[in-house]
């Protein structure tokens, strides 16, 4: 589902990263850990197509994303990569449901309202759908961003420190949902984290040195 080979990146030639190869099938979970400044977020951005690698290749499904043009990469990312961030950001002027629907529209041009509703219901947010995102608790916001990442049934789900700002209960909740839903939607899940709670839960790990 996702394979990387000899990925390398450097920030203005000073800080160099060489990343280990990754290979992951759909429904599998991989934890990427490592200390600060070891390139965790950089690797995630490379996998998500937010950064261009200096060398090496990333294959997601049948597509080599390094070969895509900027515009096609945007389209590909919308359709095939779901991203969950440490701090959930939203379009503040939109309601919870509209935020999720917006993602489906940006990626496919279709407003998948029914699917968004059922997804949000599955995530326990049925009562929050018409609220502005700023009215929700952080735990709820993180679940909305999971819904947003999954709405287009991506091949790859990337999560950047998804639990670091959550308490234990919410952290476990989010971890459960992530692993359950990624299996259900057939996505490969890669989580970048230094959260011990996640390290204890997922065994498939790579540590960046």
């Amino acid at each position, binding site marked *: 589902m996702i394979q990387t080979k000899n990925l390398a990146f450097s920030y203005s030639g000073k800080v160099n990263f060489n990343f280990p190869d990754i290979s992951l099938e759909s429904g599998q979970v991989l934890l990427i850990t490592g200390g600060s400044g070891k390139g965790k977020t950089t690797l995630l951005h490379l996998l998500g197509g937010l950064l261009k690698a200096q060398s090496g290749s990333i294959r997601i499904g049948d597509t080599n994303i390094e070969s895509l043009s900027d515009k096609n990469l945007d*389209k590909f990312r919308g359709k095939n990569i779901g991203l969950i961030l440490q701090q959930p950001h*939203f379009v*503040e002027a*939109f309601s919870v449901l509209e935020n999720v629907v917006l993602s489906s529209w*940006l990626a496919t041009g279709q407003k998948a309202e029914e699917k968004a509703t059922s997804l949000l219901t599955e995530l326990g947010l049925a009562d929050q759908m018409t609220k502005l995102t700023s009215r929700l608790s952080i735990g709820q916001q993180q679940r909305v961003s999971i819904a947003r990442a999954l709405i287009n049934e991506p091949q790859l789900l990337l999560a950047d420190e998804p639990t670091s700002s959550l308490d234990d209960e919410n952290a476990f909740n989010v971890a459960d949902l992530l692993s359950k839903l990624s299996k259900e939607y057939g996505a490969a899940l890669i989580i970048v984290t230094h959260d011990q709670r996640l390290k204890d839960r997922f065994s498939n790990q790579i540590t960046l040195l």
Partner: protein
Amino acid sequence: MIVKLAWKNIWFKPLNTILSIILLTASVAIISLLILLQEQFEKQFSSNIDGVDVVLGAQGSPLQLILSSVYQVDAPTGNISYDEAKTWMKHPFVKSAIPLAFGDNYRGFKIVGTTPDYLEKYGATVLEGKLFQKDFEVVIGSEIAKKLNIKVGDKFFGSHGDAAEGEVHEEFAYHVSGIAGPTGKVIDNLILCNIPSVWAMHDAHEHAEENPEHGEEGHIHFEGDEHEHHDHDHQAETSEQGKEITAVLIKFRNKMGFVTWPRLIAQNTKMQAASPAIEINRLFSLFGIGLQALQYLAYGIMLISGISIFIALYTTLKERKYEFALLRVSGASRLQLLNLVLFESILLCVVGFIFGTIVGRVALLLISSSTDQEYKMTFNPFAFVWEKEGILFLAAIFVGLLAAAIPAVKAYRLNISKTLANA
């Protein structure tokens, strides 16, 4: 969806939005008001000039002569001798000559002594009743009939001069013989009678002070008789001895008169010949300076509203960059972000333009009701001057694009990886 997002975004921070819209509304309102006023003012003035090459009247300000005799908005410059005027009315250059005699008003509407040619010149027909034939028979302009609810057969007393509060001529009542059809020109707001009526009214008035009974009766009887048994010319000749009129509207057969008459008249008579076209042009160019200044002011306000939009977009850019990054992550292209920012600005401008157009028309409605009272002149607030208002619309959109250009390019260039990494 992008438009919906833009729409929701501009109302999410309503204070900035309202400030920008108020400024835009103000500038668009002023400009569209000026456009409508100027257009309709000029149209009304020009349509009344049709068929009048020169106005013959007493010496004084030519503009005043034109305003009083063609537009009925100013006091007349004075009277001229009908005998003298008549020699010029028969001049070979003259194609048609319509004499006018002012004297009275009824509730502020001028009563004008003239000939049926006057109605013809304005293309007015007598819709109800018949044309004035006898003395003190009047044809009422369509607007007056509507406003004062006058019908054929009604009688009323005129007041002296052009103020509604003038001394009332109680000796004779005017008798409404007909109501003219609407023309959209000054005639709609005039009461027309024959010239001897005006003379008789004021002769009788003068006599009345010495010998009311005799003067009043004698006059009516005499005029009535004359009209039934003799043709119009004869009647005029017998009663016009030493009489005065106010002005004559002249149309020439050829352009020669237009060129030579002003000098000819000035040198040979105590009258003047004024050209409505020249005087009105002069008036418009005087107005024009004021209108232009107001227009510049309004465009200045539009520029300020543009700056206000720019500042609003630019300052929120910092807090919105996560939103932009998020949109990119969800599959939005750079171009879609650029469009989003541009749409937000253009939506503001469109909303401001719509409000401004409405406010400008409300203002015109208010102005129209006050000019209607004072000058019997109305403006139509529902008219559109497509070309000029179209240019105004484009100007508003242009301001919107200009204001959004830098913020939009910044959104376009946003580095999502950097933005999210520093979050």
